[in-house]
């Protein structure tokens, strides 16, 4: 798949690389003991270290190191047993030290790969150049006071992993898929909660354009995108801007830009004269970060099954379609739900896993997702638990209710949170499988419809559906359709 920006003088392709800042899931900050929780009152989660008081020194959080290593392992990356923290020097109101502690020359994680699923069995590998650990800055609020900017340092010093991709991305869709996939992996391993709306994951996008066969063009960096939609839109808008600029005889200048989703445009954030010179150098307050193979292996042992492996297993062992498996594994919460559902269903129905796997998947991706969507809810706050779903599906499996009744039962479950068995009992929806009872009803219906019977016997085979319908109507839909079919045909044919 290619994405072409059509210009007046020809076609351009886009080249995109991403830097994702992911907040490490940890109780305390990277270099201080203050809390990281979201939404606290301003400056209440700030230590004297975070506020850069004179003489304060950083001490490193072991958990942040471990999570960075796990993240590297999850994308099959090189883990550097020795890495170095550097200072990135610049002045800004929310940067209390006058520098950010980051990793420049020697990051903790080296090259790795993220594989994107582009549909129809097509995959694409995006290289990850590196992952490094660094401190987050504080937060500036510019619109609270006519003369002042207010600064809150609660985020100052929170641990971030900066995940830097190679410029392998060629379409806005791939960029969106990449962010989605990275978020999925982070959530699977629990190294970041991936909540973009709370700022725990942000993306910087580097965009350039070129005519086919040309070398890379000059790139612009669009900073701090906090949704996947904005990632896609900003690339489209920025690529268009660059093509128009080039075709008007201008040249793209390397700069940092901001995306304005309201106006649907990007604008320059820093002028050229203000070009930064960060003067990186190793932080003399911190020694090099070192660990051994045993530490890496211990981190590896805590990794769960990752989405790509899970998807393969779902297809190969459970017989799910590639598409369905892909949908299920995309979000860890969904995949977890599915696996609990399937286990419970196997237990309840005593059936072979492969024989019920597709049914469970179809119910989850059809019935439950449909209802959740309609109600504007996510899997995290579903009123029907995986256990309850399994109970419902098991009732179909053992013939207690029909698939059609099951839909009715599910609606009630979704509204009330009651269990499947309870709803069936309360509403008297139990399927009738008693042959004697059904036989009596069939006899009555054949007798009451002599015309239809004659037509059937005269060759209108399709009228069997009429008789089935009549039986179901008479039993309020509760007759076991299998039993009905089995009894009805011989009687009509007699």
């Amino acid at each position, binding site marked *: 798949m290619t994405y072409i920006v059509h210009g007046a003088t020809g076609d351009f392709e886009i080249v995109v690389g991403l830097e994702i800042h992911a907040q490490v899931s940890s109780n305390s900050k990277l270099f201080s003991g203050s809390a990281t929780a979201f939404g606290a009152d301003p400056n209440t989660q700030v230590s004297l270290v975070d506020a850069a*008081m004179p003489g304060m*020194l950083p001490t490193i959080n072991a958990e942040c190191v471990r999570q960075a290593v796990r993240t590297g392992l999850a994308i099959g990356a090189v883990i550097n047993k020795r890495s170095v923290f550097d200072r990135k020097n610049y*002045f800004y109101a929310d940067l209390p030290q006058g520098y950010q502690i980051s990793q420049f020359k020697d990051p903790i994680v080296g090259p790795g790969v993220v594989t994107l699923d582009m549909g129809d069995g097509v995959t694409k590998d995006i290289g990850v150049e590196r992952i490094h650990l660094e401190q987050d800055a504080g937060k500036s609020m510019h619109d609270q006071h006519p003369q002042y900017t207010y600064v809150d340092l609660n985020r100052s010093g929170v641990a971030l992993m900066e995940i830097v991709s190679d410029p392998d991305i060629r379409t806005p869709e791939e960029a969106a898929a990449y962010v989605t996939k990275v978020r999925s992996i982070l959530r699977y391993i629990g190294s970041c909660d991936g909540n973009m709306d709370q700022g725990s994951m942000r993306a910087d996008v580097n965009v350039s354009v070129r005519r086919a066969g040309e070398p890379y063009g000059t790139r612009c960096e669009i900073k701090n995108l906090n949704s996947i939609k904005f990632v896609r839109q900003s690339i489209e808008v920025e690529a268009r801007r660059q093509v128009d600029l080039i075709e008007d005889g201008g040249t793209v200048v390397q700069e940092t830009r901001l995306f304005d989703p309201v106006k649907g445009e990007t604008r320059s954030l820093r002028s050229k004269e203000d070009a930064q010179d960060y003067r990186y150098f190793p932080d*003399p*307050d911190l020694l090099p970060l070192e660990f051994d193979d045993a530490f890496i292996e211990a981190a590896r042992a805590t990794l769960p099954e990752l989405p790509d492996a899970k998807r393969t297993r779902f297809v190969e062992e459970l017989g799910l379609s590639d598409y369905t498996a892909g949908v299920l594994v995309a979000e860890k919460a969904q995949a977890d739900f599915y696996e609990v559902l399937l286990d419970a269903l196997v237990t309840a129905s005593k059936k072979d896993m492969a024989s019920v796997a597709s049914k469970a998947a179809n119910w989850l991706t059809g019935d439950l997702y449909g209802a959740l969507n309609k109600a504007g809810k996510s899997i995290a706050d579903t009123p029907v638990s995986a256990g309850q779903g399994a109970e419902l599906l098991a009732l179909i499996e053992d013939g207690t209710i029909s698939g059609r009744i099951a839909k009715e039962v599910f609606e009630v479950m979704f509204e009330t949170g009651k269990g499947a068995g309870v709803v069936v009992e309360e509403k008297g929806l139990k399927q009738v499988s008693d042959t004697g009872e059904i036989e009596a009803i069939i006899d009555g219906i054949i007798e009451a419809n002599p015309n239809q019977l004659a037509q059937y016997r005269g060759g209108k085979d399709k009228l069997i559906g009429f008789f089935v319908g009549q039986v179901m109507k008479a039993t309020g839909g509760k007759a076991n359709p299998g039993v009905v079919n089995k009894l009805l045909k011989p009687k009509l044919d007699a």
Partner: protein
Amino acid sequence: MTDLTKLKIAEARDMLANGDITARELTKAHIAAVDGFDALNAYIAKTPEIALKQADAADARIKAGTATGMTGIPIGVKDLYCTKGVHTQACSHILDGFKPEYESTVTQNLWDDGAVMLGKLNMDEFAMGSSNETSFYGPVKNPWRKGEIDTVPGGSSGGSVSSVAGFAAMGATASDTGGSIRQPASFTGTFGFKPTYGRCSRYGMVAFASSLDQAGPITRSVRDGAIMMQSMAGFDPKDTTSVDIAVPDFEAALTGDIRGMKIGIPKEYHMDGMPEEIEALWQKGIAWLKDAGAEIVNISLPHTKYALPTYYIVAPAEASSNLGRYDGVKYGLRETVQGGSLPDMYEATRAAGFGEEVKRRIMIGTYVLSAGYYDAYYLKAQKVRQLIANDFKAAFEKVDAILTPTAPSAAFAFGEKSDDPLAMYLNDVFTVPASLAGLPGSSVPAGLDKDGLPLGLQVLGKAWDEETVFKVSAVLEEAAGFIAEPKIWWR
């Protein structure tokens, strides 16, 4: 009764233990001495109320039998150390009004041992200087005068050495980045000790150059230095560069026995243009150690001449970054420009808040780290620094300690070198190499020059072998018999 301010720490300790004096008496005598010391401008903040409170607590502790070597001992604290609720500005205008909400680990250790704080001591701004002429609070005078001419006390711990030499403190905390303990000790006839980098916590010390800064004491005897060092040293989890190894008993190292010990004499420390008297004093020192049974070994530290230029890349580079936090936002001075932007505020605040030498070093540091120059300057310096450290490593394969002069001159007059940064930097030529290598060192008062000004000898040791430095220092002290005192002209 004797003048209590003339007591050494070890003497006062014994008298306190015997009940001959109380900590309150000792402290009151020193508070009076501090008040009579204003002419020297050593104290920039006095804390008599705190001192008396601590003295009473010390007396209670002595009674209870839980005293340590520092209990009830009145000391001064270099303004570089953060002291809770008390003036802490590293003698810079940019920290205008700053009173930390926390205590440095080193001073906390001293208070935990019962020491008494007389006040905060003047210093070169952010410890950048060798004559205490860069302080925002004005220069400190050396108690020792060249006839009727005032002299500098050396730097950056000028207030520390001046107060101790002038009997306005029994000891003082100091700090050494390139020689700021040893060189001023040499200028004032006091004992100065810099431990191995990592022996003392840097937590709560205003940073100048993080990879070099190290705390240490100024005292009037080697024994006093060992007692004070014992209290200041120790592992601190709050400082990643503080090292978790046991602190030896420094005072126990003062056996006086250096028989068979090998003392290295580095040939590169014979410097062109160095006063004849200093060379002669060095030879005397060599003879004293030889007489005490040590073996003298000629050694070479081939990269010595590159130490100073290396230092003047590394230290300003780190400083340029360390001082980035002084921006008028969180504490200290803020200068605003009418209708100005945030960068305008930064520039105005830092222009008004930093003195000329600090600005000069920030700019040098910024330059050597900037794009295109990093490799040629900073990286190169880090490599030469490694070579300098290797020189010492090789030397200490052959010797137990090294003896050199502390400084290339005695105390000089105000203004003599302050217009020429390079001439000023040369003061640290003998102290900087060991700082770059992180090694322990001392300056022992060993004699007077023709003008009657003190001169010191420097003893350097292996990493973590402070005991040998103390031991050799004590032997030198004994042999030199330095009993001269400055003439008291200030009260």
